[in-house]
C-alpha cells in the first residue's frame, strides 16, 4: 500500500499510451497525451512527500515536504499546456488540409 502512488503514476502513463493507440480522432489523441503527462506530475510529487510534514513555506512549524520536486512540477504544468495548444493547432491545420482527423486515414505522405 505504501507503493500505491508510484503505481498510480505508472498506470496513468500506460493508460495514456493505450488511449493514443486506440484513438480514432486526433483531438482525442492529444488529450490522452495530456493524461500521460499528468502521470509524471503524480510521480514527482509523491517522491517528495513526508507524513506529518507541511507545505514548503517558511514559518510552518516542523518539517516541510521537498520543495525541489514541486518547483519542477509547477513549471512543467504550465509549459505542457502550451505544448498541448501547439498540438491542437497542428490538428486544426491537418483538418483544414486533408478534411479528416481520423489517424487511420492519414497514412500517406503527401508530396
Amino acid at each position, binding site marked *: 500500500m505504501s507503493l500505491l502512488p508510484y503505481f498510480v503514476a505508472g498506470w*496513468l502513463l500506460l493508460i495514456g499510451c493505450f*488511449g493514443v493507440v486506440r484513438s480514432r480522432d486526433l483531438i482525442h489523441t492529444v488529450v490522452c497525451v495530456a493524461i500521460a503527462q499528468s502521470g509524471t506530475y503524480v510521480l514527482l510529487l509523491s517522491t517528495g512527500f513526508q507524513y506529518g510534514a507541511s507545505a514548503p513555506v517558511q514559518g510552518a512549524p516542523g518539517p516541510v515536504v521537498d520543495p525541489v520536486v514541486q518547483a519542477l512540477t509547477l513549471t512543467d504544468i504550465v509549459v505542457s499546456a502550451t505544448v498541448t495548444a501547439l498540438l491542437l493547432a497542428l490538428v486544426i491545420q491537418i483538418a483544414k488540409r486533408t478534411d479528416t482527423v481520423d489517424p487511420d486515414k492519414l497514412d500517406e505522405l503527401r508530396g
Partner: protein
Amino acid sequence: MTPLLVVAFLLVAAGGTVVVLTHEPSRQAVTLSVYGVLLTLLFVLLQAPDVALSQVAVGSAVVPLMVLLAVRKVRGKR
C-alpha cells in the same frame, strides 16, 4: 497511509481512465476538467499548494477551452 490519500490516488487513477475511454472529444473536455479538479485535490493533500494553483487554472479552464474550440473548428470536417 491515511484513507483520504488512498481515496484521492484511486480517484485520480479512475479519472484518468475515464478520460481516456471517452470517445467524443467534446465530452472529453468536460471529463478532462473534472480530472483537473481531482488532480488539484490530490496535490493539495500532498502539501503542494503552488502546484495545485497551477493545475487548477490550467487543467480545468485553459486546456478544456482549447479542446472545445478545436472541436468546433474541426467539426465539419470529420
